[in-house]
């Protein structure tokens, strides 16, 4: 749904859902994940519906992702780092899928 406006010079490599991805350095994890073409970042624990970052300013908590083995991180407030391991939280009824 989103793509880069211009080619970025500096990039870092993250592992997203097990696959390496090159993303612009300095951006938030939420932006990086949206930039890879993913439409949603988690599923609601209650309804199972897909959800995606909404506010991008730390208010809504829709952007929760697992970052470096820590679950429920507010990814719009975290900067990407080289080698970061990021997993989207696709879960239902509290169980990992």
């Amino acid at each position, binding site marked *: *749904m*989103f*793509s*880069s*406006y*211009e080619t*970025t010079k500096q990039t870092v490599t993250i592992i997203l859902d097990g696959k390496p991805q090159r993303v*612009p350095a*300095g*951006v*938030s994890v939420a*932006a*990086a994940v*949206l*930039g890879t073409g993913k*439409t*949603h970042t988690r599923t*609601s624990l*209650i*309804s199972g*519906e*897909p*959800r*995606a*970052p*909404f*506010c*991008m*300013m*730390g*208010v*809504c*908590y*829709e952007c*929760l992702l697992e970052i470096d083995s*820590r679950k*429920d991180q*507010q990814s*719009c*407030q975290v*900067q990407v780092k080289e080698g970061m391991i990021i997993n989207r939280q696709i879960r239902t009824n509290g169980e990992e899928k």
Partner: protein
Amino acid sequence: MKDAFGITTIGFDVAVIGAGPAGISCANSLADMGLEVVVLDEQPNPGGQIYKNIEHVSSACLNILGDDYSAGQPLIKKFRHRNPTYYPGASVWQVNSDGHIFYSKDGISKEEAAKFIVVATGAMERPVPFPGWTLPGVMSAGGANNLIKNGGLVPNGRVALAGSGPLLLLEAVHLIDMGVDIKAILETTPAIPNISSLIHLPQALGRMDLLKKGISMLQKIKKAGIPHYKGIRKLSVKGNDRVESVHALKGDDSINVDADMLFVHFGVVPNTSIYRQIGCEHEWNDIQRYWYPQSDKWGRTSLSNVFAAGDGQFVHGAVPAALKGELTALAIAADMKMIDKDERDKQAKSIENQLQNELKPRSFIDALYAPILNLLDVPKETLICRCECITMGQILDVIDEGCVDPNEVKALLRPGMGPCQGKMCGSIISEIISMRTGKKIKEVGSLNIRPPLKNIPLSEIAEIKFLA
């Protein structure tokens, strides 16, 4: 540690929470006057929402974002030059009225203390629910704007915009400049300005330059040939797992737009979390329909050592925010006996004049874009609390069972108990209660805000570093 008057004697003179225009200009002035300042902000760089990432953004993006954005450069440069103690990436999760602050940074929670606290945490976009607002592809216009500033990302599908307020149109203009395919703009604001806004027009004419800016935005949208509807109602989005189409009514005609993304904006409201959590008194603005902390012209809240600066104090915009930060700095410097009261008032005079000049069009804009909520139009199945998936129908049911206090609705039904802690649904619930029962918002009240203001792992609170 506290002295005999209960005043904190360790730590800094002033802690400024928030490194947007208000926090930065306040910190700059305080540092100029020789006070020990610490600035905390959860973002990795100074600039706040408006000047986000301004030190690193590419020149192409800088061009698109225009003068209002680059105006932040000198402020940030001065901040870097002044170099006060600055904790970027620090999320403040509790503030006590005695001046103690608890925050999380790089996975560690710590305590800090200051004699004065300036809360400059800004505003947030007003959350307004409609069917489909939780679908991926629906994003706040401010969020989409952040993606440009922070990620250099532009939408690459069909886009629709909906809501009201100048920032919605500004975002449209940015997207046009970036060549984005905008299918429609759906404004809830009526085509003919309401009478109450026109009363403020003469005063607004005092800043023709700002009004002209608005007119040129509208011209650009028109030139781009984008369908632009005004006075729409019953906005909704449909799609399977993501946005596929956007719908609304204009009069009796239905508007249907095929789109991959919808950016929404319904104005901004002060982010009052910290003020509420510390225990500041609040007042209600009936035109823009939001709560704001009670304060005097210096920003001093009902707690004498706690100040509110910037849009968190009242939504005035970026330039006034910086000016308000300076006024707050003067008041604190006078309290700390760094300057005397005459000096304070003398310096304040010119800032106040500038502020007055900046605020000329404000009442007009606020009245023109007064929110039109029509929440009772929202269908029963629509989610109000996104975190806990609580619907409009469930909320109406408990209100009808006698819950007339938002905290009671929260207790019995769980809206506001998820990770966002009611930041999204809290104000909506109060509005729904008010509309359903006919009570004024002031009587209905608002959700209590308690620590932690940010979710933090238990390991962090277990290993928190207290001040010695």
